[in-house]
């Protein structure tokens, strides 16, 4: 039996891979902070609608770009992360191996597809998944993945492929771990900064496919999806992917809206500010309405009930969320201005 060198690291599932990984690493390094707080402080709630050849079909995002949780959290709190990426696979592997030898757990960016401890239906090619490497022997790495209930083993060769695969947002062996955590983080200030950024991104970005504008674009475009789908099954698949993107792909439910509501509740307690508590409840209700979209998309997709009227109904539901969120983030911005 090959003995595994394992760092004493508490594995916890998380809602999202990046916020879960950053939170777990901060906790490991002595900072007691929750995943919603990390997510909220980094100002990551978002919306964007994309039509790009890098995706097999038009798609949307419900959080800001990968890497921004670590970056923005660091910027708003003073926490410093050591980061590295590599041209040479050998150097990238050696760097991680040396960190493990020195008992330093490190987050690595990988193609999600290669995480073969997860069920096959869950794994897709996407180069922006994050896991923490917490151990190694001659054949395998031991990882803590926010999407898996236990610590998992993955072969060294699979991990190497996952870290050095080419393609859109290629990982290039990217890794990070906290190297400095200030003794007295001004969390109050960081919370306000995170809220400001979130509200600004949702309501004021002058880009027609981002924030609330992105939701409206999505609502407008979704009725045209039948024209670009290969057939009814393909259309059904893409409509049902709306549910996956909102609920299943590491959002904490309702496209991060529940995670953000939890952040606002924690913020209200931390800042002793009741208005955030009201906003938190409002966001929870908005989340419930997004979840209704999830249920609706799954149902019409499964039944192949995808005629113009049904898609118009879906479009109206998305537009309603845009109205609600425009009002919500405008009010939220006023509270922190």
């Amino acid at each position, binding site marked *: 039996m090959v003995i595994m060198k394992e760092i004493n690291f508490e594995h916890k599932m998380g809602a999202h891979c990046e916020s879960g990984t950053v939170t777990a690493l901060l906790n490991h390094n002595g900072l007691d902070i929750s995943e*919603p707080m990390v997510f909220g402080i980094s100002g990551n709630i978002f919306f964007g609608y994309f039509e790009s050849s890098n995706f097999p079909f038009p798609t949307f995002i419900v959080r800001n770009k990968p890497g921004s949780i670590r970056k923005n959290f660091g910027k708003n709190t003073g926490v410093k992360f050591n980061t590295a990426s590599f041209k040479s696979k050998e150097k990238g592997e050696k760097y991680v191996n040396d960190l493990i030898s020195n008992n330093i757990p490190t987050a690595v960016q990988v193609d999600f597809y290669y995480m073969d401890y997860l069920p096959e*239906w869950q794994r897709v090619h996407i180069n922006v998944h994050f896991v923490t490497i917490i151990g190694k022997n001659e054949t395998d790495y031991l990882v803590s993945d926010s999407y898996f209930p236990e610590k998992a083993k993955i072969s060294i060769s699979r991990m190497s*492929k996952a870290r050095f695969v080419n393609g859109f947002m290629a990982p290039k062996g990217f890794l990070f771990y906290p190297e400095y955590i200030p003794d007295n983080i001004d969390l109050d200030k960081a919370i306000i900064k995170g809220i400001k950024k979130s509200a600004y991104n949702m309501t004021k970005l002058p880009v027609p496919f981002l924030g609330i504008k992105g939701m409206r674009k999505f609502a407008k475009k979704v009725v045209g999806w039948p024209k670009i789908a290969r057939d009814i099954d393909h259309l059904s698949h893409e409509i049902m992917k709306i549910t996956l993107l909102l609920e299943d792909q590491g959002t904490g439910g309702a496209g991060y809206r529940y995670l953000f509501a*939890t952040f606002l509740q924690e913020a209200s307690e931390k800042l002793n500010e009741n208005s955030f508590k009201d906003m938190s409840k409002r966001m929870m209700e908005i989340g419930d309405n997004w979840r209704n979209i999830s249920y609706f998309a*799954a149902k019409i997709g499964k039944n192949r009930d995808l005629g113009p009227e049904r898609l118009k109904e879906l479009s109206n539901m998305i537009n309603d969320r845009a109205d609600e969120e425009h009002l919500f983030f405008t009010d939220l911005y006023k509270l922190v201005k």
Partner: protein
Amino acid sequence: MKEKDVYVEFKPHQLVLYVEKDDDSFGPMQTGSFMAKNYLDDYFEKVEKWEKSLREQLKKGEISPVYYYMILQSFGEGDLASRAGVSKRKLRQHFQMSNFTKLKLSQIKKYAEAFDIPVASLFQLILSKHDEKRKISIKQTVTQNPYFIITKVEIA
């Protein structure tokens, strides 16, 4: 959403959702995936249909193995082109069998790597003759030679 309304029993696919607890506080809960529990059969049916339809086109030489795997693995053209080290225009040309057969072996290897399959799998599909697939296991083992694999068929 209330904790009790969210919980789904489905062990193979677990995730964390944020919910409203009984005491009105919000927090995480581990649950099975609602989509996986209720809609996996539908997903597998669709994939099976696509595979059969693409296989027919492949047999007739209407599409190349590059197109076959691109669709089955849900790649965007831009992403796949970048992984295989070709332009999008070139990639689209390689969707046609007539152009695929002109490719250098080194380029075919890059496609195989992008699809995470052996080079040989771009030239053959190994299928079970019977429907009872579970009784036969097919294991492909890579060797030090990246162009050569060993396929072992085991009948239980």
